[in-house]
């Protein structure tokens, strides 16, 4: 067998992380992108900066701050009761945060494009309210952009190491995603296993890239 049972656990774990992180992107990042594209308040500017930070901020530092925010000594732990850090939700949080800007920013760009503005004005003149304009005009227009953003976020989450290490702890059999397991394999001198896992990651990422290119060419 190419992969031993020790490698299957990270595979299944990574699949779970990607699944939950993508759901969060869909239900949190997409609405944030829509809201930021039409809001011009001080608060929305602050949120805009916040969601853009993972693009430029070192992942290990972002992970550290998230560890402080969600850690055992944080006031938020009263709510979460040690269910985030060093467990699956911590890894999902890391994957989610890493992918946020890759979903939000393209949506903002698509919904603020001159074509989107013209069509929103056309719909407004035809008597449609803002909610109808969003669901009947802007979201269908941005559909491919949203899908492309989600693909990019999945790709980014797949290779996430810094934040995952901080929030997940890289605990063998519990929070070691594929990316972390490659690091572990190399650290233990198991280069063959590291190579197989790396090839798996590369194949999956290439698939995502091809899907992204196909979407982009039809946008």
């Amino acid at each position, binding site marked *: 067998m190419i992969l031993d049972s020790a490698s299957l656990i990270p595979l299944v774990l990574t699949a779970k992380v990607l699944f939950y992180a993508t759901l969060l992107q869909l239900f949190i990042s997409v609405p944030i992108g829509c809201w930021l594209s039409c809001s011009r308040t001080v608060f929305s500017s602050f949120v805009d900066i916040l969601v853009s930070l993972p693009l430029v901020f070192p992942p290990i530092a972002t992970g550290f701050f998230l560890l402080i925010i969600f850690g055992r000594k944080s006031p938020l732990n009263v709510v979460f009761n040690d269910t985030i850090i060093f467990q699956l939700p911590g890894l999902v949080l890391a994957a989610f945060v890493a992918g946020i800007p890759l979903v939000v920013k393209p949506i903002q760009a698509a919904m603020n494009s001159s074509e989107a503005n*013209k*069509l929103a004005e056309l719909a*407004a*003149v035809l008597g449609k*309210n803002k909610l109808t304009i969003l669901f009947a005009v802007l979201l269908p227009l941005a559909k491919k952009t949203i899908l492309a953003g989600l693909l990019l976020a999945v790709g980014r989450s797949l290779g996430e190491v810094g934040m995952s290490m901080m929030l997940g702890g890289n605990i063998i059999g519990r929070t070691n995603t594929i990316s972390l397991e490659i690091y572990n394999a190399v650290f233990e001198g198991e280069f063959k296993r590291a190579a197989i896992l790396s090839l798996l990651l590369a194949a999956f990422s290439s698939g995502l890239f091809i899907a992204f290119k196909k979407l982009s060419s039809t946008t």
Partner: protein
Amino acid sequence: MPVTITIKKKLPPYSLDLSLSFSAGELIAVLGPSGAGKSTLIRLIAGLDSPDEGTIQFGNTTWFSSRDKITTSPQQRKIGMVFQEYPLFPHLSVWNNIAFAAPDTSVIESLLSDFNIAHLAKQKPARISGGERQRVALCQALASQPELLLLDEPFSALDINNRQQIRRLLKRIVREQNIPVLHITHDLEEAFYLADRFFVMENGRESRTWLSRQLSAGRTTNSVYDYKSLSIQPLQQGKHLAV
């Protein structure tokens, strides 16, 4: 419903500053050089932009008043508008583009038939020509059963045959529905054929001289130059500049 407009808006390098009123069933051709502020004028009337000061009154309803701080949204103004680039919803078929504005299917069927585009009903906008898109945009504007029609060069992409046919059709519909129309055009022949009155703009203000300069210098499009006698004739038949 009569429409009364008195508005000012800074529009560097000049200021838009004009007064205009027109009544139900009246078709006003808005003429003037590029950059005169014609498209801005209809955007302000549609509620897509706000004047700095002034009033826009539609019948007994105030759409905009800087003094009383009233601004009604475009949704509340019951306007049909054809934009300069005649945008259509790219993800919807021609039928659904018109249905987006129409109250029922009989209106859509009648418009598709009147504008000779029934065969395009299932096509997406990307698959039809510029002239056909423009006809769909006109159908869409009329489908909403507007109380005021704002047209920004609505026939610019039509060939000569379609242009004449659609002009006649528009004139008939406007007369039947008795709605006021503001029609921006650079085509003087079209303006003379369609309009009851001209409103000429230059540098954001009403101009008394631009049109006569164009006519006397023959500085118009070839088609207008060919029709020069025709274009002057309506002036003698009672059409007058809104000055």
